[in-house]
């Protein structure tokens, strides 16, 4: 995690998300919020072509942390990253048709996040990708102690709820190390024609 990586991170992430990262400096906090009440998504999982259903409470996070190798730099960084967490809850569903998941599920979550204590930090919609992203943060005396991300894409619906404090800068610096090494992003147009016989 070098300074150049941090600088690159600051350039890539626009102000709202950089602000989010600053808010998440891990500090000793008063009690974090309760985990979000997630909608019953059993029926949704049955229709999905792929689903991710992860519930890691404090005990399981402790178990996972015990199996992170402190001598491995990436494992050590991950351990540090989750040090302030009380829970991580992920539900992610991929479908083979557009928008087959009920909007009622999304609305139920937004209602919970419209209560005092939660603030919407990012709420954007891309007409081009038909995607909506909302990021909420739970604040206690000005410090963030909970995060909720809801993404609504044509064929994928994802909820991430993190309880506790997490340094998003450190999460981003670990990007590409969770399984697959990061390859250079290629957002260029299709490859130009090459001469025949090369």
């Amino acid at each position, binding site marked *: 995690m070098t300074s150049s990586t941090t600088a690159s991170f600051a350039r890539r992430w626009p102000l709202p998300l950089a602000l989010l990262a600053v808010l998440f400096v891990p500090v000793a906090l008063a009690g974090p919020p309760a985990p979000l009440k997630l909608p019953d998504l059993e029926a949704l999982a049955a229709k999905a072509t792929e689903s991710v259903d992860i519930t*890691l409470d404090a005990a399981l996070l402790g178990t*996972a942390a015990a199996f992170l190798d402190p001598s491995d730099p990436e494992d050590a960084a991950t351990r540090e990253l989750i040090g302030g967490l009380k829970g991580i809850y992920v539900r*992610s569903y991929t479908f083979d048709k557009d928008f087959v998941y009920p909007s009622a599920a999304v609305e139920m979550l937004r209602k919970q996040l419209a209560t005092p204590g939660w603030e919407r930090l990012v709420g954007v919609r891309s007409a081009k990708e038909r995607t909506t992203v909302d990021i909420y943060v739970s604040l206690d005396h000005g410090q963030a102690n909970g995060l909720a991300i809801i993404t609504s894409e044509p064929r994928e619906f994802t909820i991430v709820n993190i309880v506790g404090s997490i340094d998003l800068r450190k999460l981003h610096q670990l990007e590409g190390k969770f399984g697959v090494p990061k390859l250079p992003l290629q957002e260029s147009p299709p490859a130009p024609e090459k001469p025949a016989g090369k």
Partner: protein
Amino acid sequence: MNHDLERRLRAALRPVDPGDDFSAKVLARTAKEPAHFARPPRSPAVAGWLAFGLATCVVLGLLLAHQWQVRRTQQGLEARRQLIEALRVTDQKLDLANRVVNEKERAPPDSGA
């Protein structure tokens, strides 16, 4: 994009069935094998019973301890795997947010993006 290729690979590598009679073929082959894991017969003599009982308790204790250790290791590895997957999904969605926000910032004011 990296994520797109990964998703395509997962789709391309969905497991497939070996055929309806596969398990029957396996069982047919195992029928020719001796039952290696069958329990040993008990000794009829009283002293033999005692010795056997003691030995069984010791072996059972060691086996249980071993099984507990293996189970704990497997559970820990599974928790670790889920943690890494959760962090990966979180980072992926933050990237998505970043991309959508950047797209809006780049779009002309009247594009409605």
